[in-house]
């Protein structure tokens, strides 16, 4: 039992990321409302960002990846030790990923607005009904 608890506690961030990802995925598939799908999409992306940031974490009193001047750890400018700072690379990657997710959100919302303009609803099943009404049942 305690092993399990260790296992859980040691990796809880990863568990949370999986949970968030499942939420996002579920929303994207199950929800019929397009805006909800878009929210799900964003949650999904955030989950992955969470995963990356978790990989960056470093225990043992590591600091944020900005090299301190003089104070704090008392380091000279060129003497930064790798163990003292959190791994910056995933942060860099995730900055990019956040930007991408915002951009995607913008375009997705744009298209949702267009869809609404066209069909007067954001519900997928109602849209399907309208399309069927317009085209007479053809795909």
């Amino acid at each position, binding site marked *: 039992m305690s092993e399990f608890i260790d296992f859980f506690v040691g990796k809880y961030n990863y568990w949370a990321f999986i949970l968030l990802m499942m939420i996002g*995925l579920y929303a*994207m598939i199950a929800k019929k409302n397009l805006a909800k799908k878009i929210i799900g999409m964003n949650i999904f992306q955030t989950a*992955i960002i969470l995963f990356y940031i978790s990989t960056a974490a470093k225990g043992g009193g590591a600091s944020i990846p900005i090299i301190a001047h003089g104070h704090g750890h008392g380091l000279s400018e060129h003497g930064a030790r790798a163990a003292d700072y959190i791994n910056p*690379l995933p942060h860099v990657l995730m900055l990019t990923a956040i930007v991408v997710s915002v951009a*995607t959100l913008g*375009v997705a919302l744009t*298209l949702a607005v267009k*869809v609404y303009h066209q069909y007067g609803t954001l519900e997928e099943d109602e849209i399907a009904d309208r399309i069927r009404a317009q085209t007479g049942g053809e*795909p």
Partner: protein
Amino acid sequence: MSPHLPALPVVVPLLSALLITILGWSNRRLPFPIALVALTAGLLSALGLMKDVLARGVIGYNMGGWDPPWGIAYRVDHLNALVLVVVMAAALIGLIATRDRVKAEFEDRIVPFYTLFVLFVTGLSGILLTGDAFNLYVLLEIASLTGYALIGLGEGRAPLAGLNYILMGTIGASFYLLGVGYLYLMTGTLNMVDLAARLPGLYDSHVVALAFFICLTGLFVKMAFFPVHVWLPNAYSNASSAAGILIAPLTTKVMIYVMIRITLTVFTPDYAFDVLDIGDAVVWLSVIAIVMGSVFALAQNRLKRILSYIVVAEVGYMVGGFWLGNRAGITGSILHIVNDAAMTLCVFLAAGALLTRVPGDRLIHLQGLFRKMPVSMAALVVGGLSIIGAPPTCGFFSKWYLISGGIDAGHYGFVAALLFSSLVNVALFFRVFEIAYYEPFGADHGHDPRAHGASGREDAPAAMLAPLVVVAVLLVALGLYSGDLVSAIIQHAIPARII
């Protein structure tokens, strides 16, 4: 050649896309020439790269002057040089051919259209050249975002299709990103070559296997592999014809390239084909993809939808061929990337040409088109024959290698699926041809010999026909030179250990 050649296919289009916005905002006539120049330059540099690669082997290029594991490095070898040339050429031809369509369909959005399209090509060429797993994701998103936009602006269901494309595409890209993350977690690097060097010690790790599966799943979504193909038919068939012509030949092919690249370069064939041993399962999946794609195509009654489902089936060809894991199969897969790009370009271009003169692409609209638009229809026939796999068009030869690979691997299900799909394609295309062939007769039952001349002829504008004819000829030429293509380039793109 210049040592900076690998940067050019990406940098030149990117800068041009920006120039299109900046300059085109005031002068509406500029976007097309700038795009033309950009893509021509891209094609030329791609050809130059090809030449360099043939002469010197793999070329590396360090962005920002940082050495690979730390900075981002480009890595050009036979495989991506070949696909790059194909992509650039297809984009250039598409660009020239769609000029009038774009003017007609996007009269007040020429600037954003060309900006987005050139950015799209930038993204694709970046995907092809990059040697960094994360950089690939960013470029993938560039290509996807612009693709969503280009597809989203069309008639009818296009916005909805575009939205679905975004959702699916984001799932795919995110899965890929997650897979890269898993790899990074286990190895601490993002550079493909470095990854390949550090992975062998981790072959029995479940995380690496998981990373591979996740990447693969994501790419399957992006390339519209069968169970997750649902975005593609709607997206391609509802897009405006110009956007369809420009996007359809490129996206899925590049995604398949990414799959090949990830499998061969990052995970190495040892891991993918021997350690994991999932080849058989994927090939069976692709069998299902091919069969279902073909069957769905049969059920459609619109030309572009038929073509879209054929694209789904063709993705099955390439994935299955690659996962056969032998030289013939992979050769076929790579060759089919080249051929399918040309084929898809040809048929979508022909469909676009038809749409300039007929009101819609329902099959009923195509009646009598052989007489009305002989050149376009002839090109459609050539493209159709190529998709069917009739010699000497190029489609035959890639199919030949694929079947040969299937026989080599003893995977007769795949062979059967290929043949089945070819037969279905025959049925599909000849249904189209038949309808186009059976013209509605006039009162004289068409018996006046003079009426059979040029009088009823009303083909697409020459600006569109010329590229179309070029592509159609290219289909045959690619077929005739496929032997050289394989022996000079593709053979070098496959690792030596694959037999």
